[in-house]
């Protein structure tokens, strides 16, 4: 590494010569001030500091606790500062011993920060290299405006205020660009048209009526008559359900966490009033989220609703058997530091058995008790075999499954219960639909009940069978336990019904074990052995899945099947079973919390209308319904469908947009077939205005019209939250630990660093939004700075449940001393003290520890986890069964079943000739040293692997006559040239070096994500006429996402799971061509 660091330093020197432009950190004053730090950083990482320097690093005032963001795990970190001449740099990052993400058990929360300075917990390589992300010379410091065509890499620096003016007011903004001399851009003021909260609410209610109406035409006419004065607010008066013009601003984000997320949604949702705020969930593990959301829908009065977007994972700290399918333990999977801590010692000591199922022998598989290679995309078949065996052999938890309501669960000491025994109506084609209502068979009439606000509603009982007799069931009844028969197939009063479990058993039995085995490639004996093992450890066995299972066109049903197995085991909320994340509340509203941020929204607007990705709505309910197939998919069960945002903008379906804002995400790089997004982004007619906020010029933000510099994760606030595999209730707080790198700007008369928050505040100021500025939160509570928002959140965290103690005088002094290098623009203790009043010392207490963490002794209670889900979990999803596939018009199944890989039209890719001549199944993988798009800037990480490779099995290599290190090009049926067309004259080929290995199935190939960049400091760019050379190290390796299949019907997006939203990451067939 030394050698690499030397090279790094050489490059840094060269870089300073190249990066003369002060718009980059590498060329700025700060960089020259930081010169003295480079040698120090090098030695700190190598453990080569002198004892005197080491001593500086263990002084409590030189340590700040925050949260890593080098991947999404969000391990708590301690950042050690070295001070000189009043400035300070982050010199070394280690794990924070207060946090369960890096320690087991973690320190009691009350431990004094003075006692723990020498206690460094371990974090992964990415976390340690984070310093290089923060001090990356390619970071931008000033606002950039495009000086050439989109993506041409020509920029000019402009003042922050001018950029805000131009974005708000629009006009001929790009007269200097050939071809755009006369193009008039609509500013935000022309998009933010509906501003009257009362009117917006009224219109929203009337649009809801249209959606419910049977005769849409009549309903639209009524609407038009009533709102004749207001039609100019709408995108299309003929389709009022598209909503107001406000929806033509689209906000798209990648890695965003709590705090910043709330900050943004306040702006876009509550005040700007656009429905188009979309995250990136489906590129990660969307179908895992949305399956679990569907399983968590609760029975409310007469229908299912209120599902949570979340998921469950296994409690590795106590499980005795883990079936890990498609989850890359050791390297990834939320995350190396946290899960390994809980898994590895027990694995080494033989206290847990691990079976790894994956087409790739991953690192965890090398330590597993058993490794089973599986054909990609057939996880559902494997799970079906397991379900069939468990039910046939009666190895399920009978008591758990028979509980029909909360009272029965309580009696059985079960925190959760299912709907396995409830009866489902079967239509004449044999297709299961909704649950039978008791009134339909004359068992119990509809009841009038009152909710807690006194509002009356109709309550409908469901039905289960007990000893052959139907019984009415209220799943949420806490008093009268009802248990039902597990397997029912009968007719009641002419209605054909089956119990939910019966339906699942039948679905798992449509094929024999031998057939399931043939589909997935795992021998029957092994499937049976796994099923036996799963059912031999009581509640302490789990099926733990992640992206490998979810990121297929059948992801939703693969995950449903995996979770169904967990339900058969009845392991939810049990020690060693399935657990969910639990966090301290940030937004307030609970008793004792000072700031109810959900309510501190004077004159907030009601947003309405169909989103650009058509989510949370049924195609059939809208005025756009025009038979099947729909032009694009509709998503009643999923949201944040990353792959749909920009392609839908491209198709202007359901409407064209006027402006796009992106933040910390790169759909072009991260999505399968991301090149389809580049084509649309570079078209100024489809995306008339595109502004972005990024710490550098990224692989997608390079196409922006305006680029605002952002704060890196070491400079900003965020409430990172938790992950499903973490049994401890936590709320890690990301806080500024180093001085901000971007330029200082003035908004609402306050000085602040240019950032995501400054941008939104400035837009709010210029657009005259309510909810910002003086009395923005309400009388006497101004909202003019980012910390006005975040410090209030920290006060809420400190007072959630039983409040944290007050910091003593010594800790208060420590708090101030440790931050003396931070400028007033980001650190203003007097202001904060005034804001939080009596809670000020509690805020300090939390920030001095990097967040709030439940004590380890409270994490488990007897045989249970103490942070429980405690609700109904749907083994049969009524809500899902009531939705239809927007392409075929067929109902979506509401239960675990195996569906082969297919295109959006439900056809096999083979039918399109996608597979012939393309013998390799393409996968991707993550290595512990890379996080998709953002870690290529960390040179320490590149020392382990300067370049990624294309992995193939030795027999394939022999067949193709390929040797280790040979260069090959990856091509597929939808990218026959194997190119990334960057639409700026550059075409980057997907060429990588072959690595021959025994650790992958023959016929399968994979590459490590994170390499092969075309921006992020990899490309040459012009700023204000100066050439800034890119660093070739960031462009090396191969990024083969562009080879992934484009859907043959949609033509501008990758293939996806039409129910759960996941992109298809692991279904494409490719060919390798030697070059």
């Amino acid at each position, binding site marked *: *590494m030394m050698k*690499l660091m030397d090279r790094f330093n050489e490059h840094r020197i060269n870089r300073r010569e190249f990066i003369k432009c002060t718009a980059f950190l590498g060329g700025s004053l700060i960089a020259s001030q930081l010169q003295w730090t480079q040698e120090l950083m090098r*030695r700190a*990482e*190598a453990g080569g500091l002198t004892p005197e320097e080491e001593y500086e690093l263990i002084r409590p005032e030189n340590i700040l606790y925050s949260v890593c963001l080098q991947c999404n795990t969000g391990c708590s970190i301690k950042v050690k500062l070295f001070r000189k001449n009043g400035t300070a740099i982050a010199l070394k990052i280690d794990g924070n011993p207060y946090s369960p993400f890096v320690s087991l058990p973690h320190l009691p929360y009350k431990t004094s920060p003075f006692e723990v300075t020498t206690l460094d917990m371990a974090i*992964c*390589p990415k976390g340690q290299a984070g310093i290089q992300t923060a001090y990356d010379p390619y970071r931008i410091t000033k606002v950039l405006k495009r000086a050439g065509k989109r993506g041409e890499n020509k920029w000019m620096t402009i003042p922050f205020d001018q950029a805000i003016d131009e974005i708000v007011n629009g006009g001929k903004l790009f007269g200097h660009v050939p071809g755009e001399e006369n193009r008039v851009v609509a500013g935000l003021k022309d998009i933010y048209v509906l501003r009257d909260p009362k009117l917006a609410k009224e219109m929203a209610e009337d649009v809801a009526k249209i959606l419910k109406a049977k005769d849409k035409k009549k309903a639209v006419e009524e609407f038009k008559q009533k709102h004749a004065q207001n039609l100019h607010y709408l995108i299309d008066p003929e389709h009022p359900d598209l909503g107001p013009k406000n929806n033509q601003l689209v906000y798209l984000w990648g890695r965003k966490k709590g705090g910043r997320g709330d900050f943004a949604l306040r702006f876009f949702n509550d005040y700007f009033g656009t429905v188009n705020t979309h995250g990136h969930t489906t590129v990660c593990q969307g179908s895992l989220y949305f399956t679990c959301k569907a399983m968590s829908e609760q029975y409310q009065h007469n229908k299912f609703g209120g599902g949570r977007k979340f998921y469950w994972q296994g409690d590795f700290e106590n499980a005795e058997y883990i079936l890990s399918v498609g989850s890359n333990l050791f390297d990834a999977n939320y995350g190396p*530091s946290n899960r390994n801590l809980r898994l590895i010692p027990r694995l080494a000591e033989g206290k847990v058995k691990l079976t790894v199922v994956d087409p790739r022998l991953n*690192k965890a598989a090398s330590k597993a008790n058993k490794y089973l290679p599986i054909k990609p995309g057939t996880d559902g078949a494997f799970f079906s075999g397991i379900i069939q065996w468990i039910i046939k052999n009666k190895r399920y938890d009978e008591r758990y499954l028979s509980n029909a309501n909360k009272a029965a669960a309580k009696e059985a000491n079960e925190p959760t219960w299912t709907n396995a025994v409830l009866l489902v109506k079967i239509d004449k084609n044999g297709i299961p639909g909704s649950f039978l209502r008791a009134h339909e068979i004359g068992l119990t009439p509809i009841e009038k009940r009152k909710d807690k606000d006194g509002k009356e509603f109709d309550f409908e009982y469901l039905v289960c069978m007990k000893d052959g007799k139907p019984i009415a069931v209220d799943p949420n009844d806490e008093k009268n336990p009802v248990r039902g028969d597990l397997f029912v197939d009968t007719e009641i009063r002419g209605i054909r019904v089956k119990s939910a479990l019966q339906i699942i058993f039948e679905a798992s039995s449509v094929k024999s074990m031998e057939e399931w085995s043939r589909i997935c490639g795992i021998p029957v004996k092994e499937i049976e052995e796994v099923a036996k093992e799963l059912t031999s450890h009581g509640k302490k066995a789990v099926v733990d899945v992640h992206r490998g299972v979810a990121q297929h066109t059948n992801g939703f049903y693969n995950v449903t099947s995996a979770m169904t197995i967990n339900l058969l085991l009845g392991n939810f909320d049990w020690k060693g079973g399935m657990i969910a994340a639990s966090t301290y509340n940030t937004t307030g509203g609970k008793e004792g919390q000072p700031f109810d941020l959900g309510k501190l929204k004077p004159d907030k607007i009601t947003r309405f209308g169909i989103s650009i990705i058509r989510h949370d709505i049924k195609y059939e309910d809208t005025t756009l319904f025009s038979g099947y197939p729909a032009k694009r998919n509709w998503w009643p069960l999923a949201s944040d469908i990353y792959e749909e945002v920009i392609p839908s903008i491209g198709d202007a379906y359901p409407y064209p947009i006027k402006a796009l804002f992106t933040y910390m995400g790169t759909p072009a790089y991260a999505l399968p077939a991301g090149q389809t997004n580049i084509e649309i982004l570079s078209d100024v007619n489809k995306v008339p205005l595109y502004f972005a906020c990024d710490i550098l010029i990224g692989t997608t933000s390079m196409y922006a019209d305006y680029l605002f510099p952002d704060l890196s994760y070491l400079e900003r606030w965020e409430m990172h939250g938790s992950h499903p595999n973490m049994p401890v209730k936590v709320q890690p707080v990301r806080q500024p630990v180093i001085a901000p790198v971007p330029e200082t700007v003035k908004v609402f008369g306050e000085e602040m660093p240019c950032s995501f928050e400054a941008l939104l505040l400035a837009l709010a100021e210029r657009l005259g939004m309510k909810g910002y500025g003086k009395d923005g939160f309400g009388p006497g509570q101004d909202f003019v700075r980012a910390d006005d928002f975040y410090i209030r959140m920290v006060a809420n965290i400190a007072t959630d449940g039983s409040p944290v103690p007050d910091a003593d005088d010594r800790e208060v002094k420590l708090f101030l001393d440790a931050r003396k290098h931070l400028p007033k623009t980001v650190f203003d203790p007097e202001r904060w003290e005034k804001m939080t009043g009596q809670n000020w010392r509690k805020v300090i207490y939390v920030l001095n520890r990097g967040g709030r963490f439940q004590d380890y002794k409270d994490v488990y209670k007897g045989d249970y986890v103490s942070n429980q889900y405690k609700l109904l979990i749907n083994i049969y999803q009524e809500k899902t069964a009531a939705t239809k596939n927007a392409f075929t018009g067929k109902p979506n199944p509401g239960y675990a079943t195996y569906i082969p890989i297919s295109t959006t039209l439900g056809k096999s890719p083979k039918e399109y000739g996608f597979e012939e001549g393309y013998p390799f199944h393409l996968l991707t993988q993550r290595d512990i040293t890379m996080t998709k798009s953002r870690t290529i800037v960390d040179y320490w990480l590149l020392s*382990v692997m300067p370049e990624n490779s294309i992995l193939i099995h030795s027999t394939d290599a022999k067949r193709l006559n390929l040797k280790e290190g040979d260069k090959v090009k990856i091509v597929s049926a939808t990218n026959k040239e194997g190119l990334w067309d960057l639409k700026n004259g550059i075409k980057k080929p997907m060429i990588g070096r072959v690595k021959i290995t025994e650790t992958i199935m023959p016929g399968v190939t994979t590459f490590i994500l994170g390499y092969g960049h075309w921006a992020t400091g990899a490309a040459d760019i012009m700023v204000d006429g100066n050439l800034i050379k890119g660093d070739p190290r960031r462009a090396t390796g191969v990024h083969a996402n562009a080879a992934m299949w484009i859907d043959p019907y949609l033509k501008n997006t990758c293939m996806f799971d039409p129910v759960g939203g996941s992109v298809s990451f692991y279904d494409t067939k490719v060919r390798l061509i030697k070059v």
Partner: protein
Amino acid sequence: MTKEEKEALIARLEERYLKKYKKKFRVGIEEAIQNTLWGYGLDLSRCIGCRRCVYACVEENNCSREKPQSQWIRVIRLKKGSLINLEDSEHYYNPELVPEKEFLYIPVQCQQCENPPCVRVCPVHATWKEPDGLVVVDYNWCIGCRYCIAACPYRGRIFNWGEPNVPPEHWNTSVHYLGNRPRMRNVVDKCTFCIQRVRMGRYPACVEVCPTGSRKFGNLLDPNSEIRYVIQNKRTFRLKEDLNTEPKFYYFFEA
């Protein structure tokens, strides 16, 4: 871990090795001998670059012979008069020709630093320094991230790309848990000064095999040890001393 747990673990490992390799292994868990701090000396004026140490090490420590080849000692060849360059020097010279007049040979292996950079970067605490100064890896804990390899300034650590490829009759069945027991794939290993030998009072295999007596070994805390003699009487130096890693591996030239 309690004593019982350790014994159970060892029994489990021995059983697994018996099943897998058809050999009865003895997996030692000997702890560090009190008041010892192992140090190594290497007389560069005697080393002829024959690489017998490399092969003795491979044999002793059950390193994979080929596909993948794994060796804990690297003998680098250096033109006389040039500066020591650990990164770009040749270590695949022709063994038939040694010793070559114009070249020096420098065997490099884990330097058993007192302040080991590899230890502090490990994300799972799978590697640490023992009380007798040996830097060791628990292969069952290692997740194969290789950041320790990146951190080591001496290239002292090796990654096991595959399971060890050892001819059945060549297995050394006398192993230590923290040393030469058969590794699994995807873990990092390294020289341990033959922990399985030195804790039983024997020399490391490389010391024993060296035909020229270039290799010296002993307890740094024992004033009468060979290594102390070397340090006191020879002009020793350590590699990359400027890094503050404090290697316990002393090179010297016979004056």
